[in-house]
């Protein structure tokens, strides 16, 4: 059965999360150790700044496998078992799959819908594949999970809108100008927030970026840090009409741009709209500037309102995403349960085909001299007859997965067809009776908080 032991920003405080995270370079070693734990046939470790999760496919007792992962975490991070119990969540079966799908879609992230987690999960999958700790079940689960996450993002737009003030400023720029490449921007003041917005502008292709500060050396420092040019304060103010975006973040007690200043700067302007972002408190720009045609002023409250409403949009999208995930988890579970009867089906088919082959060989002398084509035709005839005969019984066996009588049905088939028990193989195909026929809710919360 699928098991997951993890810790995230909801179940553990920052200092515990710091202790529990695995550095990227140590992951191969960690994976190798987890893979060797009792009852763990396949393993994946996801370690990011906000979560550590160990996902495993267990061929034995779920509780024993979960305990071995918890003991491993306790040893690796020098935490006591009660502490591990307190700060982790433990999930099994469909709940573990649902949780992983949610993580991939950003539903379990600190910032709802954030897209970085998908890349981190892909990296974890790649590392586990390289280390050979991913088998058929986790491989199927992760591929299904990654493709679902992509679909969720496209279909629901959960990551579409900005949820940070700095990114909201850039998004506003895109709403006004379409694209930011080829645009010019000016940053008045030398605040950290101004730097952050400036960095976003640069990453979105702004052509030229100027910093102006009352202390010229500050402007130079920021320009060098972010990438841009520095101009003296007065020259910066004079450039307001010559750029497309102005970000103001001075610590001035008085307004630095009045309505008259901006009106004068934009008179006869041919370069189109002007976006002013005032993230200073107290405000740097007279709010009445927004009344000027083709000038759009957003202060910190205006940006925060946009962020809040975007978060609301994301919450709506998250509900839609949960519905999609529920469908995909059900599909994965169907596949997984189907794997319980696969070894028997394979054994049954191979056994019948072997009988057919024996009979062909027994009758070969009586068939006389057959050409290559005729031999092939006889082989195909026998194979087709066997397929036809087996069709209904095999369909019935497949149905046992949904009916929940895999064990009884399997036993009956073995006795009727005289098929021996398939050899035990790690993973779902070799462990038909590892799971109860109808697992139902399988969340195991022993300490920690529910992460779903």
């Amino acid at each position, binding site marked *: 059965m699928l098991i997951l032991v993890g810790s995230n920003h909801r179940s553990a405080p920052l200092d515990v999360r710091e202790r529990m995270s695995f550095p990227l370079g140590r992951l191969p070693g960690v994976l190798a150790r987890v893979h060797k734990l009792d009852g763990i046939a396949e393993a994946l470790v996801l370690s990011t700044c906000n979560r550590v999760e160990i996902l495993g496919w267990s061929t034995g007792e779920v509780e024993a496998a979960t305990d071995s992962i918890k003991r491993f975490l306790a040893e690796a991070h020098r935490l006591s078992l009660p502490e591990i119990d307190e700060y982790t969540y433990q999930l099994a079966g469909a709940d573990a799959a649902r949780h992983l799908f949610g993580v991939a879609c950003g539903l379990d992230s600190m910032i709802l819908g954030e897209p970085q987690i998908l890349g981190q999960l892909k990296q974890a999958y790649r590392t586990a594949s390289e280390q050979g700790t991913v088998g058929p079940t986790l491989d199927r689960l992760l591929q299904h999970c990654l493709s679902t996450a992509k679909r969720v993002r496209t279909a629901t737009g959960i990551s579409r809108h900005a949820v940070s003030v700095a990114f909201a400023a850039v998004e506003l720029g895109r709403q006004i100008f379409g694209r930011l490449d080829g645009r010019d921007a000016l940053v008045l003041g030398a605040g950290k927030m101004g730097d952050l917005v400036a960095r976003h502008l640069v990453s979105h292709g702004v052509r030229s970026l100027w910093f102006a500060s009352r202390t010229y050396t500050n402007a130079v420092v920021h320009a060098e840090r972010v990438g841009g040019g520095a101009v003296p304060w007065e020259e910066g103010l004079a450039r307001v009409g010559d750029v497309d975006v102005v970000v103001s973040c001075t610590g001035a007690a008085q307004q630095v741009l009045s309505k008259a200043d901006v009106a004068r700067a934009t008179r006869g302007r041919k370069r189109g709209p002007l976006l002013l972002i005032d993230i200073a408190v107290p405000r740097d720009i007279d709010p009445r500037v927004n009344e000027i*045609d083709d000038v759009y002023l957003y202060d910190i409250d205006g940006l925060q309102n946009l962020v809040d409403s975007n978060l609301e949009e994301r919450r709506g999208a998250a509900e839609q995403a949960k519905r999609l995930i529920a469908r995909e988890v059900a599909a994965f579970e169907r596949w997984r349960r189907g794997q319980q009867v696969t070894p028997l089906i394979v054994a049954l088919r191979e056994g019948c085909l072997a009988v057919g082959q024996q009979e062909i060989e027994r009758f070969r002398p009586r068939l006389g001299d057959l050409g290559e084509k005729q031999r092939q035709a006889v082989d195909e005839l026998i194979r087709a007859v066997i397929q036809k005969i087996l069709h209904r019984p095999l369909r019935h066996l497949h149905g046992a997965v949904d009916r929940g009588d895999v064990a009884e049905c399997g036993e009956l088939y073995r006795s009727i067809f005289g098929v021996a028990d398939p050899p035990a193989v790690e993973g779902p195909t070799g462990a038909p009776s590892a799971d109860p026929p109808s697992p139902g809710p399988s969340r195991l919360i022993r300490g920690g908080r529910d992460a779903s």
Partner: protein
Amino acid sequence: MTANPFLPVSLVGYVLAIVAVTLRTVYRADAARRVASTCFVATWLVHLGGIVHEALRVGRVPPTTGAEYLLLLGWVVLSLHLLLWFRANVELSGLLLAPLAGVLCLAAMQWLGASAPRTERAVDGWFLVHTSISTIGMATLCVAFAMSVLYLVQDHALKTKRTLALLARLPSLERSDQLGHRALLVGFVLLTLGIAAGVVVIAEARARPVVVGAKLILPLLAWVVFAAILVARASFGFRGRKAAVLTITGFVLGLATVVGMTL
């Protein structure tokens, strides 16, 4: 009412397409966009079928009557909307241009057969030049109108700090402005040529110099408004909200000319 069997079908197509665009706008559903695209293309074909049917019925190349003009204008407006929809990806034109084209089609349905055809003498080369150019010019001005409306909506949303989710459904301000400006430029040139051809038609019909009457005042007023916008933009960067409002005003004057001509 006309017996043209294509037009009621095209009206149904317009309604379905507009419903699909509305669903697409509200729920951002890809399926709704696919349905809307199919409806638009099908409606375009059926509407074209209606024009051909009408031409075959009366035995003349349209438009020779006000109703035919409306029918053709609606189809050209829909054609330009399809350009915006597929090439420029301006989906909201489906909530402006498509209903406009639908209303023009409906009006044409009402008046087809009721409006008197011109005499054969009047339907000469100059008349066809005048009506053809005017139709395309007016349709292009419809695009300028639609983009101006979108500009005003976007401008209002930005000024009043509406949510980004709403803004995301609109084209950027610059895009609305550029598309509207281009449409206005082309529409203005065609309107100028259309008015010139119209003057020749009136002069030929009356066999005497044209006196500026009611029929010429409205298009001339629209022409003056559009010329003022274009000159002001080229000279001192006149654009934005006021330019959008003036474009809409000019378009309304142009539309009044069309309605006056049809009635």
